């Protein structure tokens, strides 16, 4: 029996290379702060058990995440939920807050030692997390020691961090003279240390590893600027060796790995957790809100409600200003924006705009590919627009962009608009369940999965081997398939005609066929019923047919509809329709 687990709003693939493991993470937030199927963040364990990572706090918005190097990073607008998670180490705060500016270290006493300084040195300290290898930003500098002759230096008023992820501190110092452009390693301190007696000679200090340095052009590397990410950030995205967040109209970006490595090879931080406040790019020159990010090769695309913008570059000195590449085809929300592939090759991206156009782009041009299903798109519940989501999925000959939309009064998507990237055609799927979120991914062993969660919190996956919805559950339900032609003139739109029979090529003996007719513009909305849904007959030669003897078939245009529901006799190789044929007898032109 299906057991409600989580009514996910987002699903992510999580990978831990240390453990050679991959699993799925689901997030749901209803702002209550209470654990439930609509308010939880968790993963599936080796025992297939959904295991909570954390419960979103009261007032949390949608929990979004991004996976990078064994850790999953989460944001939902609240400081308390700005966290990271690792399969082995559990939940920790994302980033380390540096010692406060009011927490000033002092050099309070001099003892006999081996330090000799002409001008004096200045000390700094920073917190570190042994598990992640991350360091906080620097503390405020100590006062200069001043000239020193054969002394030790007693450092006091070192303030331990209250963050449980902090496993220790690192004490750094300038060379004699107090030049802060290079900070050398002095000592490692315990996490609860409040003082330190330094007796490091200037010679030893200059030979010590460098944890922070600034070159002549002002570029820094090391732990300066290792600030936590903005908790109010949205749309965490990994692109070009950095993590990116959107904070209002600004793009915020973390350091890169190169920016935390110093000239002595010290990796002074975990770049995903180090967000200098100056790593910020103003996106819009007007009233515009960022709705999502898309990493596309060497380009980062920024979608607002009005435009699609793009930027390139490798670091703060080369990042271009996000410029408009597509006007007036803005983005509805992050989940509908998907890179699409054809036979494994990226061919562009697709998304839904706030005015319900479905756009397809090869990153150079775009077109409104959703026009053929505009009636369906127009049925989206305006109150639930942000619940739309999309996924790209492929399976054998099929390459789909699947757009899930809530129609009518539904607030959870109940209709899947399936765009075939090979044939450039749309098909509509309606499942027994409403789909709150979906994820297409490959298992570590290369098995493709397209899983989704429903409005009750049950977990399902598309299964190419079954002809049922809710397969394996006691509520298993047959799939009703319907094809309805457009109004066909059957060769001549000006001639009234009658029909003799309709032959159908199908393997489904339970199919029903109906026929409607129309001749006037006013009658297309309420066409004449020529044949109500009728079961197939078997002709003397074995073909499936329906006969229209006596049916009121005198119209110019006809519409044919075919329907069938899967049952115990159904197989995945069933042919729903491969032939449709009708005998036509023209009547007159008037």
């Amino acid at each position, binding site marked *: 029996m299906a057991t409600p687990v989580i009514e996910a709003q987002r699903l992510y693939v999580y990978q831990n290379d240390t453990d*050679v*493991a991959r699993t799925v993470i689901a997030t749901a937030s209803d702002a209550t702060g209470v654990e439930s199927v609509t308010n939880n963040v968790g993963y599936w364990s*080796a025992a*297939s058990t959904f295991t909570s990572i954390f419960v979103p706090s009261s007032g949390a918005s949608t929990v979004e995440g991004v996976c990078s190097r064994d850790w999953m990073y989460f944001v939902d607008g609240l400081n308390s939920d700005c966290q990271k998670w690792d399969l082995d180490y559990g939940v920790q705060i994302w980033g380390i807050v540096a010692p406060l500016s009011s927490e000033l270290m002092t050099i309070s006493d001099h003892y006999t030692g081996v330090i000799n300084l002409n001008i004096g040195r200045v000390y700094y300290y920073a917190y570190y997390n042994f598990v992640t290898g991350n360091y906080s930003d620097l503390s405020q500098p100590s006062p200069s020691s001043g000239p020193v002759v054969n002394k030790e230096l007693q450092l006091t008023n070192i303030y331990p961090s209250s963050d449980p992820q902090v496993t220790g501190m690192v004490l750094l110092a300038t060379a004699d003279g107090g030049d802060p452009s290079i900070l050398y390693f002095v000592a490692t301190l315990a996490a609860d240390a409040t003082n330190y007696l330094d007796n490091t000679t200037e010679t030893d200090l200059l030979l010590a590893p460098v944890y922070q340095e600034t070159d002549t052009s002002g570029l820094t590397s090391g732990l300066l600027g290792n600030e936590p990410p903005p908790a109010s950030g949205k749309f965490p995205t990994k692109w070009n060796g950095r993590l990116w967040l959107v904070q209002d109209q600004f793009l915020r970006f973390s350091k890169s790995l190169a920016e935390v490595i110093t000239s002595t090879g010290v990796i002074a931080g975990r770049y995903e957790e180090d967000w200098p406040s100056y790593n910020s790019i103003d996106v819009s020159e007007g009233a515009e809100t960022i709705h999502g990010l898309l990493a596309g090769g060497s380009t980062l695309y920024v979608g607002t409600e009005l435009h699609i913008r793009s930027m390139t570059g490798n670091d703060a000195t080369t990042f271009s200003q996000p410029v408009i590449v597509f006007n007036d085809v803005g983005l509805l929300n992050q989940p509908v924006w998907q890179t699409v592939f054809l036979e494994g090759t990226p061919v562009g991206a697709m998304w839904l705009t706030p005015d319900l156009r479905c756009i397809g782009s090869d990153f150079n041009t775009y077109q409104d590919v959703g026009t053929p299903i505009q009636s369906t798109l127009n049925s989206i519940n305006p109150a639930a627009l942000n619940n739309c989501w999309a996924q790209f999925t492929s399976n054998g000959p099929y390459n789909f962009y699947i757009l899930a939309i809530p129609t009518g009064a539904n607030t959870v998507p109940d209709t899947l608009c399936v765009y075939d990237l090979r*044939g450039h055609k749309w098909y509509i799927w309606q499942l027994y369940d409403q789909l709150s979120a979906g994820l297409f991914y490959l298992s570590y062993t290369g098995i493709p999965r397209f899983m989704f969660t429903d409005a009750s919190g049950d977990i399902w996956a598309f299964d190419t081997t079954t002809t049922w919805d809710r*397969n394996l559950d006691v509520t298993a339900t047959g799939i009703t398939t319907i094809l309805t032609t457009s109004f066909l003139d059957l060769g001549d739109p000006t001639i009234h005609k009658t029909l003799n029979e309709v032959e159908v090529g199908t393997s489904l003996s339970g199919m029903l066929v109906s026929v409607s007719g129309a001749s006037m513009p006013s009658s297309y909305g309420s066409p004449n019923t020529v044949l109500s849904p009728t079961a197939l007959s078997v002709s003397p030669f074995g073909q499936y047919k329906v006969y229209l003897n006596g049916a009121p078939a005198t119209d110019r245009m006809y519409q044919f509809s075919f329907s069938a529901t899967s049952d115990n006799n159904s197989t995945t190789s069933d042919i729903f329709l491969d*032939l449709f044929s009708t005998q036509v007898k023209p009547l007159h032109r008037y």
Partner: protein
Amino acid sequence: MPEATIIPLGLNSQDPFALYQYNRTSWRMAGVDDWTAPPGQNPDMLVTALNVLPPATNAFQRRWGYSIFSPKLDIGGPGGDTNTTPLLRQVLPFEANNQVGITAQQLVTPEAVLAGSLILVFFYNTPAVATGAYPVTDSHGNTYTQVQWRVNLDSELALFWALNTTPGHLTVTIACTGTTFNICAGVAEIIGASHLTPIASESDSGVSDGGPSGTITLASTFMFPENQLLLGWAGATNTDGSASFTAAGCFTLNEPSGYTVHGVTSPFLTSGFQWCPQGVANTGSLPAKFTCNKTVTYRGVVLAIQG
């Protein structure tokens, strides 16, 4: 170019009013267009194409269905990321203690059972008769094997299994060939079992008036691989003056840890059935240990099924 063809059927193909055949066998241009209004609609397109796959083979086929799924931590080796964890699909507990002196009892599954499912029939009755004295049959002609039988004082508890061969509702009949009996019985359907027999089972019985007791331990050599379903079934003589078992309360699962226990009871609460449809990692030899939660005379069975 329209994918339909027109085949004249009359003798004079130039006669505009001659009989003809409108024929379409190509569907590669067919997709949904619910936006364009008639009469100018593209004849190759469809107003509705619901729940079909694109015509990759030039024929329409039904879309994919979907199944119960449970992701799992995939460690990259064989057996990773599977949806074949055995599931207890349906359970029907049945109580017939008020039907004193009957010779046969029937249970009808609330939902249709699937072909290939493992059917478990468990019952608790008085008076005790003898092992093998209860033929179990069903409406699908499945063959039942007795897995466990436990007698204690004047009552007994038994467990049978069969592989279901035919889909559809199932009527299970438990007969007593020796004498009449008072019975509490149930039937369960399990899907996803890779071994079509329970891979291990044990039973135990006893009297415990001083507090919860009655440990049943699967064989110590029994290994706990992944994807396992543990089942427990207990019956008790209600002599402690309280209601008997509660849902998921007939046993406490002591070992292994990490299971979520589910359960049902019979309507008259003199017996209970519980299950733990989760797997554990292969951590070596590990006995499953249930503790009977009654302070009374009890009988119980546990078994494990491999997914």
